[in-house]
Each structure stands twice: as structure tokens, then as C-alpha cells.
């Protein structure tokens, strides 16, 4: 993975030192909260319902064991012994004291981490396919592009006060695990016919009040022109994006208002100039960054299947292999997803003890590396297949071996009304109750792949538009209500879910989800997964069953 040189390190150290003086100015009363707010937001520090929350950047979701240990230490030293992994591959600490925030940034800097651009109207942490570099059929490791974009976008002088936040996601695969078309910019790296690497640039996707699946704006962009092209996109957006209405300020609205062709034309015209302005990375610097992502030296001649004893089968090892173990591009290795969704738990939360255990396991079995998925799980990317049984046993000891990855209880939920000051309704308790309703693992495996995503308000941090079953919390005359959407997906067949009908109270929403699942089970064809059944059947049979009683 990428390692800081003295420039990167000095930069992050100076950033932490700068924030220390800003906090001191706030604590002494020299700055009012109003004056301090933009400064803290540029360092990932939010004021939530009950306390400050610090969001720490995990660039493209890649962590070393040492970094995860440091996060565990921070959870113990400055928070309540746990952290929350987010849908943007970051981690949040929910109970932070303002006066300690500078110490946290200093501790983070020691392990080459920071909270830069995890909030505010800036280019946010760039996300990537969590299986980057280890999955079969990838054109290129997207993290190389992500790191290039990370450096280019870090405290960019021109683009730090955009109309609204700006999110970029990158994949190097045709299978989309990064939901690129729900981002302000989604990048797919492909191999062109001549084997050179090119980028397809999708612009103007997003969720929130007005969801859009991003259209393709630029195909076949050469690797060498990437940064000047991004500068052109950001400049057009910075100059012409709406600033009069927060709900219309994302780039998706600009793309929609101008039309894709006109937007593309304006960017192209701008690019003719930015190309000549020196933003593009010299080849040597690209190579320098690329070298960090070469991956470990793999062992050869490893046996290619996990050793399964009857004993292990009985206790669930086979189930876990089915959901948590993914093929690796190198024979004899596997990619392991660790579920942070225990039945009845809070999606994405991990205790400091769990973080330390995972850091240790990554050190022993995964070349010190961990990934964070946008689905709020963790990944060990370099596991030898022969190590799977022992890894599984050790994970199980920490309650980290729930065999539900990709299943109905692997729910994405935003913090909702339990933490977030913008929320209309709670998300976490709904996720907990749904997972309890489907607690029986065999039933989950029988239902098959099903993604439930829950947001506590229209801002859609829980990606409800992209859920096979999406749940949106709304406020109905002071009461928490939940709208249900069906058929959304963030994968390569990206689609926005369709509202099934009137909302449900918090008492009836879990029953409604169960009714939907039962309807699917009754009507599915052999081997059919939930999303395909919804696509085939439409909403009608689900509506019928959901609203039959009334």
C-alpha cells in the first residue's frame, strides 16, 4: 500500500498543527462557533446531536494493521471504545471532546492518517472497489488512480469551496462493487484494444432528494489526461453549479439542467485549456505511486481448496465460506469479507477489541492489510486458503464470523436519529430488528442475495435508493414513518428503487419487509435472486400483499 514520503508526512503533520491552533483560538473565545465551523468541517469534525463526531479518512478503504491498531487506541483513549465504519469507507468516532480533537489528529498523523476532506463542500475521500488488486479480471488496481486523485485533490486551492460536497469512486472491474454511477464522478478503468489503460468517466450520479444514475460523459480518456480532465469538470462545476439552493447544488443537477451533451461540450472546451496548465501527472510520478500497489510476493504451489473437516462443517464453516470467502486472482489464496453485521448489532460498528483482533489477524494471515467496504464490512485481501479454517475459528471467537455477507441481515444503515442532527427517523434500530427477524441463518441462505439499505432522511447516506429493498425514514406529523423502495441497485446494472406505496410506522415496517421477502419466496423461479424477481414481476404482487389488509 502507499507509504508517505517526507512531503506527505510534513503536510499531514502541519495540517494537524494548524488545527491545534484553530481549536485553541476557539477555546479561548477568539473565534466564535460560527467562525470556527468552516474550519472544523474542513477537518472532519461535526457537531452531532449529543457530541462532536470526528470522521477519519481511510483513503479508498485501505488500512494497514498498524493503522487499525491506532484506530482502536483512539476509540479507547478518546471515545467510548468503539468506532463506526461508514458507507464511504471512512471511520467515525461519535463521542469526541473538542479539546482532544487536535491530539487525535496528531495520533493519526503518526500512522499516516488524517481527517482532511471528510466533510465540507470539497472533494471527499475517494472510494474504490474493496476487492481492488486481488480480484480476477481487473484492468488495473483502481487505488493507483485513487491515490493520484487523493494527492491532487488534497487542499486544492481552487476547489475547496465548491457548491456542495463532491464524491468520486473508482473501479477497475466490469463488476461494480463501488457503486460508481451513484457518485458525482464515477471512473471505470478499462483496457483499450491496444492494451493501454483508459478511463470511462460517468458524471452526475447521486442519491439524496433527486437521485440520478450517472450518464457516461467521457469514454476512453487516456490515463495521462485524467487530472486535467478532472480540473475541467471541477472548474465548470465550481463556476456554474447552483449555490442558491442546497438541494440543487450537486453536480447532478447541473448535468441534468444543461443536458449531458452540453455539459460534456463545456467540459471539453475547458479541458482544451486545462490540458496545457500542468495539472497532469508526469509519467515518472505515476510510476512511483503505482509501485506501492504491486501487491505482496505471493507463495506459489499452495493447495487450492480450503481444508474442510466434518467437524468444521457442522459448526458453520461451510456457510461462512459460501458468503465470506471470495475467489482471489492468485491460486491458493482467498479474499475474506468480515461481517460487521452480527444479528441485532449496529451495522458497521466495531469495538476496539474487535479492531485489535482484526489487526492481529491481518498481520498473521493477510500481509498486514485490511479493506473497508462501502457496505460497512471489512476485508482481508491476502488470505491463504489453507489458513481459512483457523482464521474462521479466530474470527468466531470475536463474534466476527457471522455468515451473512450479501444476505438479508447484511444491512447498510446510516446513523439516523440516534446520532445525526438532520435525521427524521431512526435507522439503526430498524436494521437491528430486521436482522433479528431473519436471525435464522439457514433461512437467510435460502433467501439468497438481498441488499437492504436504510437512511434516516432524504440525504440518503444509507443509500436507500440503491437497495434491493430501500427504506427511507420520514417524519409524518412528528412520528417516524418509513417508505419502502424496491429494485434499486448500485452494481453495474445501476438502478434507482421504486416506491412501493404509502409508508409504514416503525411498528409495522419490519412486518412489511418480511411480507416482501415472503412474496418473493412464493413467486421466485428456481435459482432466481431477489433483484431479478423484482425486475421480472414488477411492484404489483408486492403491493398487493403489502396493502391487502387495508
Amino acid at each position, binding site marked *: 500500500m502507499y507509504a508517505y514520503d517526507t512531503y506527505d508526512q*510534513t503536510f499531514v503533520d502541519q495540517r494537524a498543527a494548524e488545527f491545534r491552533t484553530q481549536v485553541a483560538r476557539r477555546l479561548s473565545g477568539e473565534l466564535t462557533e460560527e467562525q470556527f465551523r468552516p474550519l472544523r468541517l474542513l477537518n472532519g469534525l461535526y457537531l452531532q446531536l449529543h457530541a462532536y463526531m470526528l470522521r477519519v479518512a481511510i483513503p479508498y478503504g485501505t488500512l494497514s494493521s498498524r493503522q487499525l491498531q491506532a484506530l482502536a487506541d483512539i476509540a479507547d483513549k478518546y471515545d467510548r471504545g468503539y468506532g463506526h465504519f461508514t458507507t464511504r469507507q471512512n471511520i467515525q468516532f461519535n463521542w469526541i471532546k473538542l479539546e482532544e480533537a487536535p491530539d487525535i489528529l496528531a495520533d493519526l498523523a503518526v500512522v499516516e492518517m488524517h481527517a482532511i476532506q471528510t466533510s465540507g*463542500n470539497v472533494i471527499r475521500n475517494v472510494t474504490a472497489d474493496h476487492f481492488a488488486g486481488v480480484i480476477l479480471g481487473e484492468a488495473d488496481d483502481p487505488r493507483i488512480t485513487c491515490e493520484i486523485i487523493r494527492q*491532487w485533490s488534497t*487542499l486544492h*486551492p481552487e476547489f475547496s*469551496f465548491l457548491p456542495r460536497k463532491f464524491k468520486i469512486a473508482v473501479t477497475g472491474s466490469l463488476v461494480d462493487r463501488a457503486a460508481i454511477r451513484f457518485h458525482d464522478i464515477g471512473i471505470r478503468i478499462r483496457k483499450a484494444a491496444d492494451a493501454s489503460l483508459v478511463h470511462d468517466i460517468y458524471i452526475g450520479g447521486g442519491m439524496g432528494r433527486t437521485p440520478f444514475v450517472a450518464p457516461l460523459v467521457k469514454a476512453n480518456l487516456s490515463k495521462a489526461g485524467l487530472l486535467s480532465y478532472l480540473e475541467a469538470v471541477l472548474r465548470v462545476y*465550481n463556476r456554474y453549479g447552483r449555490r442558491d439552493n442546497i438541494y440543487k447544488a450537486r453536480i447532478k443537477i447541473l448535468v441534468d439542467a444543461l443536458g449531458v451533451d452540453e455539459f460534456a461540450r463545456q467540459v471539453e472546451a475547458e479541458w482544451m*485549456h486545462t490540458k496545457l496548465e500542468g495539472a497532469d501527472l508526469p509519467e515518472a510520478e505515476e510510476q*512511483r505511486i503505482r509501485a506501492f500497489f504491486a501487491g505482496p510476493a505471493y507463495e506459489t504451489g499452495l493447495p487450492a481448496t480450503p481444508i474442510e473437516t466434518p467437524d468444521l462443517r457442522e459448526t458453520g464453516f461451510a456457510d461462512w465460506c459460501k458468503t465470506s470467502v471470495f475467489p482471489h486472482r492468485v491460486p491458493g489464496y482467498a479474499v475474506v469479507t468480515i461481517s460487521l453485521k452480527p444479528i441485532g448489532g449496529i451495522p458497521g460498528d466495531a469495538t476496539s477489541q474487535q479492531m485489535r483482533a482484526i489487526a492481529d489477524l491481518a498481520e498473521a494471515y493477510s500481509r498486514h492489510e485490511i479493506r473497508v467496504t462501502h457496505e460497512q464490512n471489512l476485508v482481508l485481501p491476502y488470505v491463504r486458503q489453507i489458513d481459512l479454517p483457523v482464521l474462521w475459528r479466530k474470527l468466531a471467537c470475536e463474534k466476527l464470523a457471522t455468515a451473512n455477507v450479501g444476505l438479508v441481515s447484511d444491512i447498510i444503515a446510516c446513523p439516523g436519529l440516534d446520532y445525526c442532527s438532520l435525521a427524521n427517523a431512526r435507522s439503526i434500530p430498524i436494521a437491528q430488528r430486521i436482522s433479528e427477524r431473519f436471525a435464522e441463518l439457514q433461512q437467510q441462505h435460502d433467501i439468497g442475495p438481498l441488499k437492504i439499505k436504510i437512511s434516516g432522511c432524504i440525504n440518503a447516506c444509507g443509500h436507500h435508493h440503491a437497495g434491493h429493498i430501500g427504506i427511507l425514514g420520514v417524519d409524518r406529523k412528528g412520528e417516524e414513518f418509513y417508505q419502502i423502495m424496491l429494485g434499486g441497485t448500485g452494481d453495474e446494472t445501476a438502478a434507482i428503487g421504486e416506491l412501493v406505496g404509502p409508508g409504514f410506522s416503525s411498528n409495522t415496517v419490519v412486518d412489511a419487509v418480511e411480507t416482501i421477502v415472503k412474496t418473493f419466496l412464493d413467486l421466485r423461479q428456481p435459482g432466481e435472486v431477489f433483484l431479478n424477481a423484482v425486475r421480472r414481476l414488477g411492484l404489483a404482487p408486492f403491493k398487493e400483499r403489502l396493502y391487502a389488509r387495508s
Partner: protein
Amino acid sequence: MPALDHTGARVTSWHVAADGEPINPSTPTLVSLAHLIGMNKAVAGVLLESDADLDQAGARLANLTIAGVKFTTFKDGRPFSIARLLRTRHGFTGDLRAYGPFIPDQGAFLVRCGFSSFEVVDGFDEAALRKNIAHFSYNYQHPLSVTASIVALRQANAARP
């Protein structure tokens, strides 16, 4: 109201003329873009709004010795783009001054986009501005100000025997 140069030192304020006001060529003066376009000879600089259409001004901008760009709120980052365009595309090489309610903690961003001076209100935290401008030793982006970018420094180091 005081004005500061790019190191944060005090300099004189420029006069901002109302449209139609006669210009005294011996006083540094800014006029609106429309006013500038109406002049047959540029005897004043231009004070640009954040939505200014620079192409309207044609080649005139390159000949000016002073110009300003006005912030409407510090959150509206359009002046950063305007400044860069003036410097990189419209050939403006004179003194470029920021106007309006920008904040001291934007100092380095302003300088790195090509601003060279600041018009500030009384009570503006000048010390914080100076600190902000001088704070970072390195930046990632190709610069419009004096410090070399990290990319350039890495290239130079790699080229060293």
C-alpha cells in the same frame, strides 16, 4: 479600510468607482466589467463579480495593471476559479486583489490561485491571514505562487544523481 499584500503587509486601498464616475488616472481605481468594456482606453482596473464572464472582456484584461475579484460569502468559491483564469488564460500579470467577506483561513488558497493582495475590513484578523499564507511548506498542486509543488520536488529529487 486597510489592504494587505500577499505577505500580509499593509498597502494602500484602491478606489472603487461607481459606474459613470469620472476616472482620475493618477489614483489606482477599479471599475465594473461593463464599465471597463465601455472605455476606449483602460485607465482603470476591473473589479469582477464572482459570476463574471471573462471572455466578454476579450484581450483587455492582459493590459490591466490592477484587478479585483469580489467574494459574496466566503463559502462561494467562484473567485478562486476567476483568479486562476485571469492568471492562466487571460494573461493578467498585475496585482490581483480579493474583495468581500473571505476569511483569514483562506489566505493560502487565495495566494495559490493567483491573488496577490487583499482588501479587508477593520477588525479583520491580519495575523491569522499571515500565518495561514505561510503555514504549509509544501502543496500537491502545480502552483501559481512561489512554492514548488510536491510533484515537482519529487521529480527534482529523482533527477539528482
